[in-house]
């Protein structure tokens, strides 16, 4: 009984019986239940249209579930109020395949932007941003613009930005989709390093090699349903 309670307390993401139905002919998620512990590194795999992106949107409250419950830590976000959404998103760092950097801002400004729009003081911003750039190995690139960086470097800027609010969870949606093998390896190493600090990582990917090398938990989605959930799993589709 004590062990069960302890496990529940450790869950960072709890998804119970969640469905997302756009219309009768368009069901993105069907009765999905997942429990992800704090500090876990989980890969979510599945073909296009399997429901990976919808799952991400539900986690950051960009969309609401049609059915079921979603909890981040002990915070139920299923019916989250509009004014609470920004606070939720500060706890979930997002990384995308297309980096989503602002081209007219420098590397420093892109990372600082995340802190600026949440009302952080300038003093703290000038203190925190260099630390974040150091974590991703871009201390010497602060004054460069995104177009002056390689794809891997741009993704590292995006990772630094996602860490700005010291999130409890990082959701990386195909972070290596546009990268070559060397840069892919670098990004995965950074994610592993962040995970070692205790941050829960949710990696949504198509990359078989990455998943197989990681040898961490793998959740396989198909047709909006969880078809496989393996500890130290492999890419099976």
């Amino acid at each position, binding site marked *: 009984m004590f062990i069960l309670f302890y496990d529940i307390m450790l869950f960072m993401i709890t998804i119970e019986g969640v469905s997302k139905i756009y219309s009768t002919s368009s069901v993105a998620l069907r009765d999905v239940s997942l429990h992800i512990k704090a500090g876990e590194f989980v890969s979510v795999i599945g073909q296009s249209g399997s429901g990976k992106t919808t799952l991400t949107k539900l986690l950051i409250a960009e969309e609401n579930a049609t059915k079921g419950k979603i909890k981040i830590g002990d915070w139920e976000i299923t019916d989250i109020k509009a004014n609470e959404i920004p606070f939720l998103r*500060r706890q979930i760092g997002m990384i995308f395949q297309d980096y*989503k950097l602002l081209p007219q801002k420098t590397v420093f400004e892109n990372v600082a*932007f*995340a802190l600026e729009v*949440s*009302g952080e003081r300038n003093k703290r911003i000038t203190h925190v941003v260099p630390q974040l750039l150091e974590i991703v190995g871009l201390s010497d690139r602060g004054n460069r613009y995104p177009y002056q960086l390689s794809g891997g470097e741009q993704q590292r800027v995006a990772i630094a930005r996602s860490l700005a609010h010291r999130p409890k969870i990082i959701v990386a949606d195909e972070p290596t989709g546009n990268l070559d093998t060397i840069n892919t390896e670098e990004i995965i190493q950074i994610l592993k390093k962040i995970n070692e600090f205790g941050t829960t990582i949710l990696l949504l990917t198509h990359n078989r090699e990455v998943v197989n090398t990681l040898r961490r938990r793998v959740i396989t989605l198909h047709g909006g349903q969880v078809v496989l959930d393996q500890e130290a799993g492999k890419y099976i589709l």
Partner: protein
Amino acid sequence: MISFERVAKFAFQDIVRNFGLSFMTVLILILMLLSVNTLWSVKVITNEAIGLIKEQVNVSIYFAANAGDKNVSEIEKYVRAFPEVINVQTQSAEEVLNSFKQRHALSKDVLGALDELNTNPFGPTMVIKTREPQDYKKIIQALSVPEYKDIIEAKSFDEHESAIERIQTMTNRTESVVAGLVLLFAAISFLIVFNTVRTAIHTQKTEISIKRLVGASSWFIRGPYWVESLIFSVVSLSATIAIIYTTLRFIDPYLSVVFPSGFSLTNYYNSHILYVFGIQFLSVLVLTVISSSLAMRRQLKV
């Protein structure tokens, strides 16, 4: 304070990025405000003109030479009893004769002709002032009864009445045209502000999506557009005030010729500056804020 500074910075960035549209928005708002001020000035000038005419308007009752003092004082008493009447001045036949002689002191022919008569041809005169020009009709009607037919020789008012009516008609027409223009410019401004904000949102789609992702509050996402509305209102009103005061420098000399009382629109605007421009500022702000809000409601999901 920090967040307001940042939101203001984002707003200025938006304006610079969409400079053409922002310029058009401010221009249309200025045109609208200028129409409003034209309407306002026309109203002020008309009121001043009508006031001036009203002051000069009175009913003069010319009595027959044989009217008799008793009849005249009875009519004066009767007229004074009307609540609309504010002043009655009666001149006796002798006073009328004396004042006629004074007026024509240099005209020997006129005075000679008067001497030839050997009698005073003038009857007493009564000058009546009422609160409003339309009250004169009532007084004239009251005096146009058979009992006074032989005593009262003439009553003069009709010309003043038509002058006031003409001014009123002209003013009403001008006001209608300018009010139409104000509505037209208000509608155009509304659409232009709506479009400016919509375009700004569209051009900053990536920036807005990043703001959302990194947990920006609604104020940081929507705030810049509210601040833009405020900037549009302040800039357009400031420009309008500058244009109005410059124009008044040219208009006032003409007004001082028409209004010997020393009426000046500049003085009017100076003494009513907070009221006149305060109302206009609030109106423009409400218009731009409503328009931006609608654009955001359609385009911006936090």
